[in-house]
């Protein structure tokens, strides 16, 4: 455990730690492009120069191991000068097309230039032109001119995804990123290359040109794409959610997330959602504020709770399960709770990196609570009981993303055989058009609109907070079950009205929620 001084401050570092790691640990800033904590060291950008006492020349911090008593300085004039010139060389052939570049606002070149820029470039030569808008594959677009050849993306496909699509071809100022013989950059983790590209050379097809990044806010959350539960940041504004990026968590996802997980924002946005409570009439749907349906629905459930079945997916929070199960088992003395597990045969699949076959964020939390509440029901019993009219009302807490529920249509059809069906779900589904008359649809909140805890595949509890409101009339599962219980559901500042345990975020009026709802308008903020 060598001891060193960084800018006059004493720091003890791990054996074998490099200077850049020491500086990061000490929460100090250092300019760098090619170094990434999740990748091997390349030492090619030369921006991380530091002064080491007794050493006449500057050294790169990312590839120099700290030794006992080292005195390191990265704030001296000499260091700043090195960064300034390093940056200027990076910009020799850079097109400087920030106004049309999607990275503008979160670009490493812009950021460093604000700090170390030379502001009077001496480059009089013509720039080398290279290919722009190269279609690299299904997810990523490449601009070879903007690339600063840090090789992060190459090391990612080499070391992390192990798919080896990318390489640096040619030599000198003709060097450029490319793929062998026009092959596609196509792997399940390809969009991480966009995250780690410090400049606008690699951009995401899904996100590019949809928003300027300075019009987005971000907040931390948990990916609901599978039972791994990668830690993520969602980026949003009043128009909706726009993208999802990974957040480092050593225990869960490291620095990365999968491409499919990045799509979770799509089923949270308003255009994919159930916006209103609805009742199917022979002539079509009638819309209500869910609270207005309270009497009708609760009479279906409370008349004879023994004949009601509750179907639940692994998509809700532990808090919701706890409250809803206790309502069912304690208040109504019913154990008719059935677990709808999508693709059971894929449950234990794992791609070796992050993505798991269980496409639910909280199967573990659900299983544990089913056990705690002494519920051990079989799906096939539910079907039998429906057919024999032992069950005549089915209440479903459906999936947030029906795409990952290939059996959705089939399940809906078999549950619709019950006398009455109450379907609670956050997203809309084309199959809802075919439900029998009398069916109720109740809009639920998505994971960004509530707080709670998910238990991931390994049993790790991960708390997440509310990010924003998208559908103002949507309810949490707890709120929806309050409706079922026949209690008055009103959204007002009195927390006792809701039985939700975590209503902090919702102690506001419906008016307030409506005002803060997303508006889907282009260009408006």
């Amino acid at each position, binding site marked *: 455990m060598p001891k060193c001084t960084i800018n006059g401050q004493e720091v003890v570092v791990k054996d074998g730690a490099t200077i850049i790691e020491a500086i990061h640990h000490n929460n100090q800033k250092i300019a760098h492009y090619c170094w990434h904590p999740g990748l091997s060291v390349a030492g090619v950008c030369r921006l991380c120069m530091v002064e080491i006492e007794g050493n006449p020349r500057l050294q790169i911090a990312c590839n120099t191991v700290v030794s006992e008593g080292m005195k390191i300085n990265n704030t001296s004039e000499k260091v700043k000068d090195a960064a300034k010139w390093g940056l200027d060389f990076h910009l020799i052939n850079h097109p400087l097309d920030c106004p049309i570049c999607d990275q503008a606002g979160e670009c490493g070149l812009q950021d460093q230039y604000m700090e170390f820029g030379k502001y009077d470039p001496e480059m009089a030569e013509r720039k080398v032109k290279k290919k722009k808008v190269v279609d690299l594959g299904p997810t990523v677009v490449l601009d070879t001119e903007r690339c600063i050849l840090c090789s992060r993306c*190459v090391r990612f*496909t080499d070391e992390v995804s192990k798919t080896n699509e*990318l390489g*640096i*071809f*040619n*030599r000198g100022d003709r060097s450029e990123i490319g793929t*062998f*013989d026009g*092959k596609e950059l196509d792997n399940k983790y390809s969009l991480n290359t966009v995250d780690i590209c410090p400049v606008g050379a690699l951009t995401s097809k899904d996100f590019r040109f949809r928003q300027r990044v300075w019009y987005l806010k971000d907040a931390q959350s948990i990916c609901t794409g599978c039972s791994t539960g990668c830690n993520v940041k969602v980026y949003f504004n009043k128009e909706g959610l726009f993208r999802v990026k990974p957040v480092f968590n050593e225990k869960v996802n490291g620095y990365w997330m999968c491409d499919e997980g990045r799509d979770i924002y799509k089923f949270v946005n308003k255009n994919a959602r159930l916006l209103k409570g609805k009742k199917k009439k022979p002539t079509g749907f009638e819309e209500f504020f869910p609270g207005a349906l309270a009497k009708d629905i609760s009479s279906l459930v409370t008349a004879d709770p023994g004949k009601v079945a509750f179907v639940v997916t692994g998509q809700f929070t532990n808090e919701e399960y706890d409250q809803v199960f206790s309502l069912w088992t304690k208040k109504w003395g019913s154990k008719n709770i059935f677990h709808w597990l999508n693709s059971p045969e894929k449950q234990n699949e794992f791609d070796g990196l992050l993505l798991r076959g269980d496409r639910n964020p909280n199967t573990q939390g659900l299983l544990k609570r089913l056990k705690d509440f002494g519920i051990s029901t079989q799906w096939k019993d539910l079907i039998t009981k429906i057919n024999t009219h032992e069950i005549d009302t089915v209440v479903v807490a459906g999936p947030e993303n029906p795409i990952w529920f290939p059996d959705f249509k089939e399940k809906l059809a078999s549950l619709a055989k019950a006398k009455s069906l109450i379907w609670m779900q956050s997203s809309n589904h084309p199959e809802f058009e075919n439900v029998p008359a009398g069916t109720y649809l109740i809009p639920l909140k998505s994971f960004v609109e509530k707080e709670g805890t998910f238990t991931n595949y390994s049993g790790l509890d991960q708390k997440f907070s509310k990010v924003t409101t998208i559908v103002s009339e949507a309810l949490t599962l707890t709120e929806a079950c309050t409706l079922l219980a026949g209690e008055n559901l009103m959204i007002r500042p009195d927390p006792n009205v809701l039985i939700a345990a975590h209503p902090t975020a919702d102690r506001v009026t419906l008016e307030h929620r409506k005002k803060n709802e997303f508006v889907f308008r282009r260009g408006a903020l």
Partner: protein
Amino acid sequence: MFQLSNEGLTKVKKELQRYESKDSAIIPALYVAQKENKGWISPDVIHHLSQVMDIAESKITEVFSFYTMFNKKPVGKYHVQVCCTLSCALNGARELADHLCHELKVRAEEMTEDGRFTISKVECLGSCGTAPMMQVNDRYYENLTPESAMNILRGLK
């Protein structure tokens, strides 16, 4: 589909054994393959080498595209490389190369219509004392004049 001959395969396998890191064998392997593929490296060749050597195609392409000695497009039966670096340039190498191109009615780096010649201008070939010089496939010809060079080419079958 390009395939190394048995002999070539043995050579590549031997190179693979020779270095600490497999990647170091890429240059010799490309050299062997280029010889067997009429003097140039096609995507086919890289694909085949990648399978033989168990190294990603992109990695081989990185090396291949870095060096000018690996040809990226087909070359004539005789690849004529005229050195145009200092000593040779001072002794009229560029004029010599232009003369050859003119006589063969072909531009530098392109192949004659009959597929017999490609004329390239290259950097120093290490024979500066006998400038100007050219290399035709594996052979050096030194102390040239435009005429003598052309005569040499005419003499090739």
